[in-house]
């Protein structure tokens, strides 16, 4: 069980993020739920790169050849973080605009296009 903990936690966060998005009644809250959903990918990626006994992959103060964790997943995660931050900025700007133009941040009330 413990061996699979990161996977379980990732799936758990993922599903709660989805739940938040689906049931949200406020667009700001909904965007934050998407951010929660995203954190599941951090957990998953870091868990994948982890190596028992490995230290950080920075060779500034450790000898070459020391066992380190996988640096690639950390690089991927950095991309992931940037993607998240930028998409959230865009979505939130739409929410601000919607508050201004339509006077609402409730997804139920913003529904103009249907059918």
């Amino acid at each position, binding site marked *: 069980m413990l061996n699979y903990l990161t996977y379980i936690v990732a799936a758990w966060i993922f599903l709660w993020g989805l739940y938040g998005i689906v049931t949200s009644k406020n667009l700001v809250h909904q965007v934050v739920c998407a951010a929660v959903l995203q954190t599941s990918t951090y957990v998953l990626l870091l868990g994948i790169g982890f190596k028992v006994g490995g230290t950080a992959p920075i060779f500034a103060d450790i000898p070459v050849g020391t066992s380190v964790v996988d640096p690639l997943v950390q690089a*991927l995660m950095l991309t992931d973080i940037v993607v998240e931050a930028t998409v959230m900025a865009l979505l939130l700007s739409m929410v601000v605009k919607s508050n201004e133009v339509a006077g609402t941040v409730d997804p139920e009330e913003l529904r103009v296009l249907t059918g």
Partner: protein
Amino acid sequence: MTATTMFPLPIAIPLAVAAFIALSGKLLGRRFSDALAIATAAANLWMTISILRATWLQPQTYWFGNWWPRAHDVALGICFTVDSVGASLAVLASLLTTAGLLFSWEIFEDTENHFQPLMLIFMAAMCGFSYTGDLFNLFVFFELMSVAAFALCGLKTLEPAPLQGAYNFGLVNTVGAFMIVMGIGLLYARTGALNFAQVGRSLGSSSDALVLLAFLLISVGYMVKAAIVPFHFWLADAHAVSPSPVCVLFSGVMVELGIYAVARVYWTMFQGGLAAHTRELRAILLVMAAITAIVGALMCYAEHHLKRLLAFSTIAHAGLMLAGVGLLAPKALGGFSLYVLSHGVVKGGLFLCAGIVLHRLRKIGEDHLHGEGKGMWWTAGLFLLGAWGLAGAPPFGTLLGESMISDSAKEFHQAWLPYIFMFAEIVTAGAVFRATFRIFFGWGELAPTDRSSQIEEKPETDEEEENVPAVMFVPAAVLILLGIALSAVPNLRSTAEAGAQLFTNQFTYAQAVLQNVEPAAPALTAPEPLTSSIVRSCIALALALLLALGSLFHKRIGGWLKFTHSLELGNPILRKAHSGHPGDYVAWLSFGTALLGGMFVWFLRR
């Protein structure tokens, strides 16, 4: 300069120019920015065509930073692996961007020169997406494409509808993107690699639950972009509100790239492991394709907002394209690549025509425009030609693509599939015919209204003009005529099939990427006769016309032909499902993923 050295340029040049315009656009003025953007897009078109010619049945690999793979096939760097399928998609993306930028010469007075850089970034992302040979790089370009698309979609920020459309688009696609990241992570956990060829080789013919889950997450993520039912809801909302030149890119190439990505990941990485279950996977994908085609067609016919109507037709055709991939055979995939090209130009042209309607008549709802377009015969002609192309009738290139997919379906004893295609073609072409007859000819009864067509779309131009400017009409006409010109290319079908054979061969692909062994060009096979497809498509065209006339004159004709009218009124349950609520859409996304996952577990496990 050899063609391979050109590979990074269609990405690097537009990106650098985009940054330049964003910085100095205000200083240089609107016209200069426009001209620079159009020149860059046209240069991209030229470069992508050169790359297509150089990689014609001869895939080439380019390693960024000179990081060639090391011993034991370990690739630390990123590579572009360009083959005919990917290269032709990049040409399509550049072509449609050029047309869109030309079209926008007359519109959008107040974007502060942010529109052109975003279009260029969008184009660069689509080119990179079609060229890349790396799993994570594919995701990066996917996101770059998405972010540019979200921003372009919400361009008209003065009304609630564009905000709703852009927000739904952004939210649903972002959830899809997170699924892709999880899938990539899981594959990396198994193989420790990100290069398609390396992952494919490392997986070999082994497949287990983890690999299957990764395949599920990655393909669902890309299917969200590809608007496959039930992941399609965002598309209609986003298209209805996007500026017309942006719709051209959305419908003409972005959606297709989603399907292309599914094909790419399947054939480079998963096909070995799933080889024992090809039959089951084919059945699953074909059922999804059929449902997508039917739902898209039904909703298309029930729609009276011109752009939304075209958007639903894109969903129907996306089903057809998914069938091309889902048959899991080179011939069908060749058909897919032809269909994407010809559908892309025709649909792009139609969206530009819708933009012309909005420009001239200031409205976009079919119910408001009854007879308003009389006198715009040239535009009406383009609409009719476009509908002709959607029906897949000769001389349009869509016929060739569809016939290859249909032939392949028959080889796999899926004779029902061509009838689904026919249904989608009849209904979507019928819808465009119906709208054209109403708007430009003033025929028949007034259209019944639906809620979406009541939305007042803000015209994209400032003043009403008496005539249609050439920069609007010419790109639309050229695109639609290109759909015809495509079928004049000699040996098109056999070359497409040969290209698809290279695409689907995991072994030679990996050898070409990792060992630099050039694959032998496959022999061109003689294509099957087109007779049955021509007959079928002509019947489809006639039925589409009949359907359109039936719903136009439903009061004068009686009996069972009344069904055409009820088709136009739409299915209330289907309509209700397209609720415009992002929560609903994400719930459907979860449902679809769970259902597809369940089917994978049931049918594809060892």
